[in-house]
Every structure is written in structure tokens, then in C-alpha cells.
């Protein structure tokens, strides 16, 4: 049941066709884990908290640095040197007191990934490297949790939604390819666009409306402002998901 306060707070989105109080209640009951507390995490966590997702766990073990602030809008000048998860949790709680925020100051590894995502309804990929994305992809598939991929480079962005056993996963598309782990160029607007697309997908999935970004990798070319798609299929020989379910 929604409170009078919640009915007023979420009035404009409850008005959306197919959303309704029922959709808002689904959001309130949802538990979302956001892997990463930086550029993609900032917009996705802000908009998920604002939309009234009941519980958000943020995992990151970095501290805020001056060079993060051009894009990681959850962190401010005053936060430099603080743990990112604490800085994020403070802002998100102030934004929406009704949302439970859990800050986990840990690095995501093969050893802990399964335990970190366990019990959550959705996993948001807000990482800054591909190897950890593959760990999350695999863990989400094993636990049958939808996985919301996003990545950026400069003005370039990518996004895709993965429904375990039904749609192509990250490994189906990228086949384990990694990119050099180095300082990459990026401006805040790119993770803002992609993080918001991820948040929109999460909300649509929870509420059960619209068409998801599945079996297609969205390619955002911010410089020319062109959106294209790479059509992909669930690979029956995929190392991560080949053994799961049928196809859609």
C-alpha cells in the first residue's frame, strides 16, 4: 500500500498509462543492486531513487578524487577523499528519504560477486571495466537476475538489457573481449545519457511496461548525436548463457 505522501510524490508517474499505483507499488518492493559508484551510477541511482525504487545497494571501493567530478555528479568538491559509497548514500537519502540505500565498500571480485547480487531483483552495470562486467554478467545469469548493461568512452555510449536464458548476454555480444585498462576519455553527459537509459530500462522492467532493450546493443554516438543498434542473438555456444533456457 502506498501512503498519502507517496501518492502525491509519485503522482505524475502514476498517471503514465500502464503504470498506475500498482506499478508504483512494484517499484517500492524492488531491490536493485548498482555495481559501481561513479559516472554511470550517478544518474542511474539518482533517477531510481527519485522514482521510488524501494531498496538500492551500491557497491564500490574507490574514494572520490578531484578528476571524478566532471562526470560523477553524486560526488561534490566537499567529498574529495571520502568513500564513494558513503558520498552516494548521503545524497540519495537526502533526495528521497523513503528509499533504503545500502553502501557496500568492496571491490567486486570473482569470490564475492555471487554473494553481492544474491537476493536482488535486478543488477545495474555501472562498472568502469569489462572484466568485472563479465563477472556480473555470469553471476546475474546464474542467479536468474536481469542485468542492465551500460558503458561509455568519450562521447560514445552503449547499453543493453539482458534477461537470463531468454536474450543475448554480454558474453554473446563481446565474446570475452577486453579493452586496455587505462585512463579513458569521458565527459559527464555521456554516462548521463547511458545511465538514464539504464534507469529507464530498470523502471520499465519492474513496472512491466514497454519494450526492453533486449537482443540489441544500443550505440550512442554523442558527437553526431546518432543512435544505432547492433542486432544480436543469444548464442547457443555462449560460455556464460549457452546452457540456459530457450531463445526468444
Amino acid at each position, binding site marked *: 500500500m502506498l501512503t498519502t505522501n507517496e501518492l502525491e510524490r509519485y503522482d505524475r508517474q502514476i498517471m503514465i498509462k500502464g503504470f498506475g499505483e500498482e506499478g508504483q507499488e512494484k517499484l517500492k518492493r524492488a531491490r536493485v543492486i548498482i555495481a559501481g559508484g561513479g559516472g554511470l551510477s550517478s544518474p542511474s541511482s539518482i533517477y531510481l531513487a527519485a522514482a521510488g525504487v524501494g531498496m538500492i545497494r551500491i557497491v564500490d571501493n574507490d574514494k572520490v578524487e578531484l578528476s571524478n567530478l566532471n562526470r560523477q555528479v553524486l560526488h561534490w568538491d566537499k567529498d574529495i577523499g571520502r568513500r564513494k559509497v558513503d558520498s552516494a548514500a548521503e545524497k540519495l537519502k537526502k533526495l528521497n528519504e523513503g528509499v533504503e540505500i545500502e553502501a557496500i565498500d568492496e571491490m567486486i571480485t570473482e569470490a564475492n560477486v555471487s554473494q553481492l547480487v544474491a537476493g536482488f531483483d535486478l543488477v545495474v552495470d555501472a562498472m568502469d571495466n569489462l572484466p568485472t*562486467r563479465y563477472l556480473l554478467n555470469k553471476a546475474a545469469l546464474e542467479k536468474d537476475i536481469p542485468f542492465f548493461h551500460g558503458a*561509455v568512452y568519450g562521447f560514445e555510449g552503449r547499453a543493453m538489457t539482458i534477461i537470463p536464458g531468454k536474450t543475448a548476454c554480454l558474453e554473446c555480444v563481446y565474446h570475452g573481449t577486453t579493452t586496455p585498462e587505462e585512463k579513458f576519455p569521458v565527459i559527464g553527459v555521456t554516462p548521463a545519457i547511458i545511465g538514464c537509459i539504464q534507469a529507464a530500462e530498470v523502471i520499465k522492467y519492474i513496472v512491466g511496461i514497454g519494450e526492453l532493450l533486449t537482443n540489441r546493443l544500443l550505440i550512442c554516438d554523442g558527437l553526431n548525436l546518432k543512435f*544505432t543498434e547492433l542486432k544480436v542473438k543469444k548464442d547457443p555456444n555462449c560460455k556464460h548463457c549457452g546452457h540456459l533456457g530457450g531463445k526468444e
Partner: protein
Amino acid sequence: MGIIKINIPAYMQSFTNNMEVVEVNGSTVGECLNHLVKQFPGMKKQLFSKNGNLFENIIISVNGESAYPEQLAKPVKEGDELNIVLIVGGG
């Protein structure tokens, strides 16, 4: 062997005289990319490693569909459209 269009991503257009679309000939993805490199030699280092393999972090799509696993060997026909998709991992 007809005309095939290759869409050049924004960050590579400095190697194609700022052209967004380059027309090439070829019957496979590989032949098309070779023809692109012939017209714009600067594209070679953008697409291929020293030993001539397509960079691992590039996906070529044909009419919006990934050319994997055939990649360079994938046949193409007149009117097809290729895209160069960079795999990115930042966040």
C-alpha cells in the same frame, strides 16, 4: 561485386576526410575494409593490428547484425551497409 556503404564512426572520421559514409567494393567484409583502407590509408591503424588482424575490440556489423563469428570472411552484397562498432568498457 557491387557498391557497399561503410558508416564511419565520429571518432574515426578524421581519417576519412570527415566523410561519414564511404562507398567501397567487395564480396566479403574483409574485402570491403581493404578497399576502405586503400582509399584512406589512415584507417589501417584504426582497424587492423600489426599482423593484419581486425582489432579484437571492433565489431563489424552488416545491415545492423554482427558479422561474428565469420567476421572478415562474411559475404556481402550490393546495397549492404557496414558499421564499425567499437567495444567500450568505461563507466
